[in-house]
C-alpha cells in the first residue's frame, strides 16, 4: 500500500509570491493554480460582482496574448482548466500532463498580468448578464443568494458573487482595472502545485516566470460579520414549482478547531445514510433534504435544507426540527460516527490519486488555514471526532431553537416571515 503521507515544499519568492508544492510521485499528471485572495466580500457595494467579472476578463487578453490565443494555448496542451470566484477568493487552474506544466504555469501567470482589454469589456458584460439570468432560473442558486442576503444583511458576505444586473450594467472598465491593480500582486496571491513534479525545478520555473512581479501591499483586512440573528425570511418567486427551505444556525468557521465535529454531525444528520435520509426522505416527505456547513474565514452556518411540494413546507420544517432536536437531546452513536470515518477514508484515498482533486483541496486549506494539509492529517482530524465531542459541540453550537429560516418559492411561507422582494 502506498503511503497517504505527502511531501510539501513551501517557498516564498523575493517579491513575496508564495509557492506551495505537493509532490505526488505516483501520478503521471500535474495541476497548478493561482489563488488570489479576493472575492465578493472584499468588494465595495458599488462594485458588487467585480471579482467575478475580473475572473472572466483575465481570460480576455494579456500583453502577450489576445483572448483567442489564450484559449488556443490552453487547448493545445489538452489542459483541464477553468477559474472560479467565491465570497472569499478567486482561483485560476489547469491540470495537464507533467511535461506541459511549465507551459501551463506560464499561461496562467500571463493571465495574472491581464491588460483588461477595453475592447472586450462590453462583450464580456453581456456574457455575465446571461450568467446572472441563468442563475435566476436555478432555485438552489436563488435560495443560496437569499439566505446570504438576509442572514448577513449589511455585511459584504451578503452580496452575490455574480453581482446584480444593475451593478454589472453600471460597472466601468476603469473601475474593474483599478480593482485588478489593487488585488492581483504577490502579497495577495499563492501559486499552488500538485503532481509528479521536482520541487527545485518548480521553484526555478516560478522564479523565472513570476520573479519580476512588483511587490505591493496586501488587500485591506476583513471585518467579521455579525452573529446570525434568529428570524424568518420569505421570498415569493412564482415561476418555481417547489418551495426551498433553509434552516440555519451559527457554526464554527473554516479555521475553528470545532469544524471537524461540525462536519461529522452534518454528515450524520443530513448526508448519505443519514437521519434525514431515513426519517424524512424515506418517509416520503420530500425528495431532496440535506445538511451541511457553509464556512468562511471568520463565520459559518450549519444549514438544514430541502426542496418540497409547496403545500408540504410545514411538514418538512417540522421533520427537520424534530430530527435536530432528537440528535441534540440524545447525541449520536458510535456506529454513526464510525460510518462517517469509513467513508471519509475511502474518499480521501481517492482524492490522493489525482492532482486535480488535491489542488482543489489545497486551495481551501491554504486560503483558510494558511498551510497545506495532506490526506493523512485530514483523516486524523476526522478520526479524532467522538460521540462525546459531538455532544460537546452541540452545547457550544446549538442546532435547536428558532434559528434563521429562509424560504423561497411560489408561497409566502411561513406566514410570520418577513417578506423580501427581488
Amino acid at each position: 500500500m502506498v503511503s497517504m503521507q505527502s511531501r510539501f515544499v513551501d517557498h516564498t519568492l523575493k517579491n513575496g509570491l508564495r509557492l506551495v508544492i505537493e509532490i505526488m510521485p505516483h501520478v503521471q499528471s500535474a495541476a497548478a493554480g493561482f489563488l488570489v485572495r479576493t472575492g465578493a466580500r472584499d468588494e465595495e457595494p458599488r462594485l458588487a460582482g467585480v471579482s467575478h467579472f475580473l475572473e472572466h476578463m483575465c481570460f480576455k487578453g494579456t500583453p502577450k496574448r489576445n483572448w483567442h490565443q489564450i484559449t488556443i494555448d490552453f487547448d493545445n496542451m489538452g489542459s483541464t482548466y477553468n477559474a472560479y470566484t467565491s465570497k472569499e477568493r478567486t482561483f485560476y487552474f489547469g491540470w495537464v500532463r507533467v511535461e506541459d506544466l511549465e507551459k501551463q504555469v506560464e499561461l496562467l501567470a500571463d493571465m495574472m498580468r491581464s491588460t483588461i482589454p477595453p475592447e472586450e469589456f462590453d462583450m464580456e458584460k453581456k456574457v455575465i448578464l446571461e450568467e446572472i439570468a441563468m442563475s435566476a432560473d436555478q432555485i438552489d442558486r436563488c435560495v443560496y443568494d437569499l439566505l446570504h442576503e438576509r442572514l448577513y444583511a449589511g455585511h459584504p458576505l451578503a452580496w452575490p458573487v455574480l453581482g446584480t444586473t444593475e451593478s454589472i450594467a453600471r460597472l466601468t472598465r476603469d473601475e474593474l482595472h483599478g480593482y485588478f491593480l489593487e488585488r492581483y500582486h504577490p502579497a495577495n496571491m499563492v501559486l499552488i502545485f500538485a503532481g509528479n513534479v521536482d520541487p527545485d525545478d518548480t521553484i526555478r520555473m516560478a522564479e523565472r516566470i513570476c520573479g519580476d512581479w512588483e511587490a505591493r501591499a496586501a488587500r485591506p483586512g476583513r471585518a467579521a460579520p455579525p452573529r446570525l440573528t434568529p428570524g424568518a425570511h420569505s421570498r415569493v418567486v412564482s415561476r418555481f414549482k417547489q418551495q426551498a427551505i433553509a434552516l440555519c444556525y451559527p457554526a464554527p468557521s473554516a479555521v475553528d478547531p470545532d469544524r471537524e465535529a461540525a462536519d461529522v454531525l452534518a454528515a450524520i444528520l443530513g448526508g448519505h445514510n443519514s437521519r434525514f435520509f431515513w426519517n424524512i426522505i424515506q418517509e416520503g416527505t420530500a425528495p431532496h433534504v440535506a445538511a451541511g456547513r457553509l464556512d468562511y474565514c471568520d463565520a459559518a452556518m450549519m444549514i438544514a435544507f430541502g426542496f418540497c411540494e409547496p403545500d408540504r413546507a410545514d411538514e418538512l420544517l417540522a421533520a427537520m426540527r424534530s430530527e435536530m432536536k432528537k440528535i441534540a437531546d440524545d447525541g449520536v452513536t458510535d456506529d454513526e460516527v464510525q460510518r462517517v470515518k469509513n467513508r471519509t477514508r475511502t474518499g480521501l484515498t481517492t482524492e490522493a490519486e489525482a492532482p486535480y482533486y488535491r489542488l482543489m483541496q489545497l486551495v481551501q486549506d491554504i486560503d483558510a488555514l494558511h498551510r497545506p494539509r495532506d490526506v493523512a492529517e485530514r483523516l486524523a482530524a476526522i478520526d479524532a471526532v467522538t460521540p462525546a465531542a459531538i455532544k460537546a459541540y452541540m452545547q457550544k453550537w446549538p442546532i435547536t431553537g428558532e434559528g434563521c429560516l429562509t424560504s423561497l418559492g411560489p408561497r409566502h411561507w411561513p406566514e410570520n416571515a418577513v417578506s423580501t422582494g427581488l
Partner: protein
Amino acid sequence: MMTETYTQLRLDCGAEFAALPMPGRRTATYEIRVLAGMAHEPESLGGLARIVEETITKGTEQRSAQELTDAFDALGANVGSGVGRESMVFRCSCLPEYVDHALGLHAEMLRTPSFPQEYCEVALDLAQQELTSLEDDPGELARRLISPFAYGARLGRHELGTRESLARIQRDEIVGYWRDNFASARLQIVVGGAIDVHKVASRVDQLFSAFGGSDGRQAPLTPDFSPGRRHHAKELEQQHILICWPGVPMTHADHPVERIMLGVLGEGMSSRLFAEVREKQGLVYWVGAWDEHPRTSGRVFLGASTTPARCDQTYKTLLREVDRLAEDLTVEEVERTKIGIIAKTQTHGDITRARVGELGSDLFFYGRPVPVAEKNARLAAVTVADVRRYLNDHPRDPLCVQTLGPRALEDAA
C-alpha cells in the same frame, strides 16, 4: 503511458467480465451493469426501471434497508447507481481489501432483493415529487422534451416516467421487472485498480452462479427520429435551445471523426461555438456540442441558453457554425482537438474510477476492452478531409429542435 493489461472472460455463471489491474493504485472500483433499462419497461409503465434501481437497495432476504446500507458503510464503500436507456449500472469504489466483501453485498442485493411494500410506495411518491422538481430544472426539462423525438417513444423515455405511468406501478410490477431482467447472463462486470484479477473473477463467478434465466441476449433497439421544431412555453429568464440530428454508433468507423468534429465545435474555450457564440457575440454563458449513444446508434446535439430576445440569433449562429465547418476547417483545429482528447486520457487516467468507467463503457458498446492507445491511434489518424467527408455523409438536416422558455423561435432557417 504505462502498458495496460486487460483481462476479458465469459464466466461460467454467464456474466461478461473484464478487468484492468493498475499497480500502485490505492483504491479499487467495480461496476455491475445489468442489460436492462428504461427501454425494457412495459410501454404503459414509464419510470419503472428507475423505481427498480431505487428500491432494489432497500433490503434483501437477509437484511433490512438500513442494515444493507450500513453494511456498505462499514466497508467505507462509495456506492452509487444509475439507470439508462438500455442498462442499469451499480458502482462501488473502496479500499482494495474490501472488494470481495462489497461484491458479496452487491450480489446479495441484486439476487435476493425484498422490495418492501412501504419502500415501493415511498419511491413512487418521491418520483411524483421529482416530477415537480424537474419543472425547476430547465436544462433537464429540455432534454426530457426532446428525447421522444430524437430517439423515438421507446429509447426516448425519461427516467421519471409520467404522473400517469407512475400511478399505474405497483410492487408486483417492480418485482416482475426484476425477475424478467436480472440474471447473470445479462450482467457485465468490470473491475480495476489495486486488484488480483483472477481472485476477483473467481469471486464474481461464484457470487452470480445460477442467477436467473439463461436468456441473456436482447435484440438491439433501433431508435426513431422525428424531425421538426417544437416549443414548450414556460416562464423563465432564459430560453433553452436543443438541436439534434442522427450521428454514428460508437462502433462505426467514423466515430473518431465525429468526436473530432464535435471537439472542434464545442470542446474547450477555443472551440468554434464557445468562440463565436459566447466570446465574439456575447449571446450566452453556456453553449455546448456533444454526442449521445444508445448501444447501436448515435445522436449529435447542440445546446445553448440565452435571454429570449437573443434566441433567434443564437439559433442561427449555432447552425451557421456547423455549416462553416465544411467550408474552412483547419488542420490546426483538428490537431488541437486530438491533443485535447489524448492528453485528457493521461490526466484523467490518474483516477481509478474514471478508468473503470471507461472499461465498462467499452464492454457495453464494443464487447471488449479497448486499450487507450488503440482509441488514441484512431483519433490521431483523423484528417481535415475525413471531417469534411463525414459532414457530407451525415448532413445535419433534417433537424429535431426543441426550445423551452417564454417564446418560440421565429422563422429561423
